[in-house]
């Protein structure tokens, strides 16, 4: 039985293919991809496709893909029913709360507005801290929002912190560490246990030898 893997394109793509290559998969097509969307493994009965992070979860949840590679940031934001089996240790970054230097969100009085691409993560975090906030969903360049006064602070992912610094924002809290995870569809794991375990084992070997 063939296995299909939904890979997240962009930030995680390069590191993921590296892991797959080290694990001994035939990913020649993935390296030289052109405009193709689906790639066949040259050694095993595995096919890959590249999609956006949150789509990767959707494909796996519906069982169209058996396995997915996706960042924990996206997994935390989206309700899903798949198994989260492995930390790939790539795409490492952090969820953080940041604001302009003069705004200490955690001792502020009155209404707090948080701009973020991750409404659920933001809400959950502040709720856990007993702080009531209003979330404003922003699709990109979240750093801009507090500068222009759209919101009091932001919840975002941070890799190095350079963008934040350059825009004069300070990190107030680190919410949690993030890295890419390997997810598996519930039904697939049960019906194709052998095939999926084979793929998992190979990848696990690479990761534990890192």
């Amino acid at each position, binding site marked *: *039985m063939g296995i299909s893997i939904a890979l997240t394109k962009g930030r995680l793509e390069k590191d993921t293919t590296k892991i797959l290559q080290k694990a001994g998969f035939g990913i020649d097509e993935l390296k030289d991809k052109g405009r193709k969307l689906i790639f066949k493994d040259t050694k095993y009965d595995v096919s890959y496709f590249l999609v956006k992070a949150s789509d990767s979860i*959707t494909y*796996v*949840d*519906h*069982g*169209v893909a058996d396995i997915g590679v996706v960042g924990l940031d996206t997994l935390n934001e989206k*309700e899903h029913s798949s*198994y*989260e*089996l*492995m*930390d790939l240790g790539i795409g490492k970054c952090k969820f953080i709360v940041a604001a302009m230097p003069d705004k200490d969100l955690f001792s502020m009085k009155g209404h707090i507005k948080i701009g973020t691409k991750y409404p659920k993560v933001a809400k959950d975090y502040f709720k856990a801290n007993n702080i009531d906030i209003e979330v404003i969903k922003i699709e990109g360049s979240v750093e801009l929002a507090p500068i222009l006064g759209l919101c009091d602070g932001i919840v975002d992912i941070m890799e190095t912190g350079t963008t934040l610094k350059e825009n004069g924002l300070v990190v107030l809290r680190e919410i949690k560490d993030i890295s890419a*995870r390997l997810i*598996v*569809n*519930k*039904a*697939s*794991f*049960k*019906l194709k*246990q052998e095939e999926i375990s084979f793929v998992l084992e190979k990848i696990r070997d690479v990761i534990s030898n890192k």
Partner: protein
Amino acid sequence: MYKNIIPDGTRDLTNEECMRKSKVINSINKVFDLWGYKEVMTPSIEFYESFRYEHSGIKEENVYKFFDSKGRILALRPDMTIPIVRLVSTRFKNMSSAIKLRYCANIYKVFEEFSGKRNEYTDCGIEFISKEKEFSDLEALIIAIDSLKSIGISNFKIEIGEINFLKSAIEDLCISEEEKTTLARLIEKKEIESLNKFLNTINIDESIKKFFLNLPLTFGSGLGVLSKYKEMSFNCKMLNSVRYLQKLAEDLRVIGYDKYLSFDLGLTPRLSFYTGIIFRGFIEGSGNIVLSGGRYDNLIGNVKKDFGAIGFSINVDELESILDNNLEKKLKYNIIFNESNKIEAIKKGFELREKGFVVELIPSKDEENINIIEEEYYGY
């Protein structure tokens, strides 16, 4: 404004779509009938309160709610087990023998927009309420397998778990209730990394830590996995759970059903009213659970003393969506007739219908006499 659209997660079905769905429903119902289960029908609307009790596992935001004329909250039923329990406590109150019920009902749940999930779907299921428990478990599993077989699918797995296994493993740990819940959730969702991290934050024995870390990845078909569970067990309750499953599995093996079985004892079901075995069905081609059920003795014991219950339901819409066209080409007749031949055409129609054919009568001015044309159609 909403003239031409239907709410999210609902569907219109027409002609062949209806036939395909009905065919699946009929096959399943027939199996239930042949095992002696009697049909019940309950209202689609119930009091919301009925579905709100501890451990119901039903989230408030997933239920369609509205008010009746007295301001009481009503709900479109989000599951069928609760209505059946109510029925048992009223209509079957005085019955002292086993009660075998089947239903085929539309279930309503509010899911997130654009998630591709259905907010209205049809469940066909059975509930077996009796004082005897071991044989009922076996019977329910056999019927579950038979009903999936009856639709003509062979590549499916019924995954069986026993909730007391994990429950008793966690029960005696010296950790807070909240930590117990987290532990169970991480194991069930097989979040290996988070589980690993979490285990390092709580104060438990190393060997037990190792057990919890291994548990999510110990599952599978074949009876061998049960021996593994046996080795892993560290208290009698866990051993008893495994032994019970071994007994069930052995019976199913003898009747040749072992190839459909799979085991996972890391399950802690969302609907936490279950008290014994729980099971669910997976079919190749569907990423979702198509069948789910289990034993829920406490719920039924509350309304009928000394009785236990086991039941399961099959999500017909999920099943139907992955079946190949299950309809057959059949012959039907169109009788085209002139006004003056009306009676003759009607009589001819009776004659053919008597033989079991579908006949359509079509009056036509262009036809001078009467013309009978054969036509193929998809039916069941």
